[in-house]
């Protein structure tokens, strides 16, 4: 009996080893890289025309008070945001260049780090204008910096001298891959649990309150008041999706269903509220869950604990 129990533990640790350091789909990771890099590049290209209001001398938050708008719990240990408008323009240009390089797959890890640096610099400069896509992208850029993210679908592969040989991937890449998957589950879980504290979500009126908020929606959706049961059902579906996704997505039988429902949710948000960039930031992770199904796994050099 002891041998059986020890056998179970051994199987469990072997599973963990395979999960955290085994082969993963580098093609899926490369698609993720393109989606995130391209999404952020377009978002910040649009933002580039508004730098004066957002980060310049004429911004709501003066340079000297950039960190003062953050509660103590959120203050960074040191700051590296641009301190005058010339630096703002320079930092933003470098940010866009690094995102473009990342999207094209040129030295993916390096440019992910560079992009993360400038991305966080602007978060520190003016946190008041930050929204969901930018906060979530911090995580994705960090994990991309750890991963071999430009093995496929990279401009580098078009240049024979720069094309890398070998299947690629390493245990750090797998860890980053898994951390991205786990992070999206954490985001959905906390958001869903937090919604359970809200009376509007229990009564099914939360979606109506969003649709009725002209500041948030791109069109007048008040005609939907004729379908109250539908609205209430969609409200409850949102909570159920966010709470159960983190668990069900790990089961092959439910994975595709979860992803299809997630695409439906975020596509609805894009059409109703116009939050295109946030939707892409969240949906881009789904390709990592489908990596095993859509693509062949990489041949990693070996797991951390077992020999290759």
């Amino acid at each position: 009996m002891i041998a059986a129990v020890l056998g179970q533990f051994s199987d469990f640790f072997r599973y963990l080893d395979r999960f955290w350091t085994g082969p993963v789909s580098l093609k899926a990771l490369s698609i993720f890289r393109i989606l995130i890099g391209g999404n952020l590049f377009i978002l910040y290209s649009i933002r580039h025309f508004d730098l004066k209001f957002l980060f310049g001398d004429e911004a709501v938050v003066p340079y000297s008070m950039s960190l003062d708008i953050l509660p103590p719990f959120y203050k960074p240990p040191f700051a590296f945001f641009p301190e005058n408008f010339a630096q703002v323009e320079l930092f933003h240009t470098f940010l866009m260049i690094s995102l473009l390089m990342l999207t094209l797959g040129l030295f993916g890890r390096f440019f992910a780090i560079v992009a993360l640096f400038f991305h966080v610099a602007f978060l520190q400069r003016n946190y008041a204008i930050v929204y969901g896509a930018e906060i979530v992208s911090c995580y994705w850029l960090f994990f991309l910096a750890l991963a071999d993210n430009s093995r496929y679908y990279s401009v580098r592969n078009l240049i024979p001298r720069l094309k890398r040989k070998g299947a690629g991937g390493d245990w750090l890449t797998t860890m980053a891959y898994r951390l991205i998957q786990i992070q999206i589950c954490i985001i959905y879980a906390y958001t869903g649990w937090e919604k359970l504290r809200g009376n509007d979500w229990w009564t099914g009126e939360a979606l109506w309150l969003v649709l009725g908020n002209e500041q948030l929606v791109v069109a007048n959706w008040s005609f939907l008041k004729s379908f109250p049961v539908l609205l209430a059902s969609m409200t409850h579906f949102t909570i159920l999706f966010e709470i159960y996704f983190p668990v069900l997505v790990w089961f092959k039988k439910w994975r595709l269903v979860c992803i299809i429902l997630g695409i439906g949710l975020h596509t609805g948000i894009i059409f109703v509220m116009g939050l295109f960039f946030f939707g892409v930031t969240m949906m881009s992770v789904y390709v990592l869950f489908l990596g095993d199904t859509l693509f062949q796994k990489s041949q990693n050099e070996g797991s951390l604990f077992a020999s290759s």
Partner: protein
Amino acid sequence: MVLVPNEKAIQTRVAQNLILPYLNLFGFNTHWRFFSPGPMPALYMEYQLNKEVQNEDSTQSVDMIQERIFPKKKGGLFYSSSYIRRLYTLRHHGFNRERIENFFAPYFCRIHPESENIHFEFFTYKIPRIESFEEKIVYEDLERKMIHELNFQCDLEAPKASEEGKTQYRFLDEGDFKTEDEE
């Protein structure tokens, strides 16, 4: 990843001195509250630029220069990044009187140097329940619910709010939103 979204938890309080510096450095410290616990109401801001004028009988009065809305109403069907950023700026500051006085109001003084006094009104509309709704939302007909109302002296050296300012919401932590009635 797991601890900091629940910032008030004992585990987070125990571990925060160790992990917070790293998390805040990378911008990882955030609570995931997308429309949670409930959708935030719309927040509107109207402001009035005033200038003190000397009357013929040597008394002083206040003349209104201009009335404006921030952010300007978006037009068109599609998403406007510029509008959304300004809206988020308003929402970040507008529910918190301290932020209004320290950041928001002085900003408007800077961009309107011609005004000596700015009157701010921050308000929201109560969206009717779905069952009692008319054919179409006409926002101007909805009941206004004042959140903050204050007169701000644009003294370049030390801008400050006058004592006549009223607040119907107490100082809040980031992300919280309660009225005195709901407590």
